[in-house]
């Protein structure tokens, strides 16, 4: 049977009550990191991201969200330890969205990215990516198409590097444009999957090893019209988020 990745993509904004419930499950270090961020939107996004991670993983492993602990590897890769140890988790946020991914038995990396409005991505790819990938970005018609190609490649690199627990910067030139199995230095092989989302956001998942796997996005309807989940969905659901299709928004709990 194929391995399965559970993926939740949710809005980074939440009401005061939902935010308070997230703050309540964060550990002191996470609260301090949230408090240090320089703007309310950054603080809220961090709180929603880490709160949702704890709520979703806690539910998956049957441990109180506030009791979960992660230790950080040499390059910052978090590994679940203590009472909930076992599953592999990954967290990413960009713009107004957060992505949480959980895999039972294989190291995982997830990356979500909104195309940045700044520089033309062709220049970034030409400077930092594999030359074939740089051509791929440059050859894509208009700026929006170049952004889309760049962002897809970027999320695939980030996801692979996160799954491997490696550093991003030496792996910017890691080719990820051909085939879904990539080798990250001495860390081994990783299988990449692009996940469709609504709008311009791109999501990629990487899992250790070459074996195929399925990605099960929670609560999402068929893209590209699917709305992201909200923190309310996370707080009010058993984790499947199937309530979204049966109960009107705002009347679930």
């Amino acid at each position, binding site marked *: 049977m194929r391995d399965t990745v559970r993926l939740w993509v949710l809005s980074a904004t939440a009401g005061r009550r939902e935010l308070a419930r997230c703050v309540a499950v964060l550990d002191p270090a996470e609260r301090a*990191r949230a408090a*240090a*961020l*320089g*703007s309310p939107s*950054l603080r809220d996004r*961090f709180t929603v991201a880490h709160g949702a991670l704890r709520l979703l993983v806690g539910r998956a492993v049957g441990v109180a969200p506030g009791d979960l602990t992660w230790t950080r590897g040499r*390059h*910052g890769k978090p590994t679940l330890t203590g009472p909930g140890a076992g599953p592999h988790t990954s967290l990413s946020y*960009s713009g107004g969205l957060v992505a949480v991914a959980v895999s039972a038995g294989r190291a995982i990396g997830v990356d979500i*990215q909104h195309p*940045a409005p*700044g*520089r033309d991505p062709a*220049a*970034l790819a030409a*400077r*930092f990516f594999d030359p074939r990938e740089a051509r791929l970005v440059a050859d894509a018609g208009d700026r929006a198409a170049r952004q889309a190609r760049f962002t897809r490649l*970027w999320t695939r690199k*980030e996801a692979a590097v996160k799954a491997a627990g490696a*550093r*991003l*910067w*030496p792996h*910017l030139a890691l080719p990820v444009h051909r085939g879904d199995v990539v080798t990250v230095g001495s860390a081994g092989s990783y299988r990449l999957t692009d996940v469709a989302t609504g709008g311009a956001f791109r999501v990629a998942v990487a899992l250790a090893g070459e074996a195929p796997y399925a990605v099960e996005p929670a609560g999402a309807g068929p893209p590209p019209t699917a709305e992201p989940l909200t923190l309310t969905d996370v707080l009010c659901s058993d984790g499947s988020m199937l309530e979204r299709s049966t109960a009107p928004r705002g009347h679930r709990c």
Partner: protein
Amino acid sequence: MLEPDTTTAAAPREQVVGRLTALLTRMLKPTEPVTERTQLMDELGLSSSLALELLLELEDELEIQIDVEDLDEDRMTTLGDLADYITANSTPR
């Protein structure tokens, strides 16, 4: 560990600090003034993709090439840390 030889650096550290300060202020529009002690990820919320843009902008402005092979999140905790790295790991274009 040897101190970076700033006398032969592709760009003087003060110049790197000045340009990083201006670029980060423009890109992220922080509410507090950006200084050498500003924490890039933990205060400004700098993402890796924005860091990529930041480095390319800096390379173009200072006409240098930054070797990113040894770059790590630990070496860009504060603006001052990143300026140290760039000063020690850049060559003129």
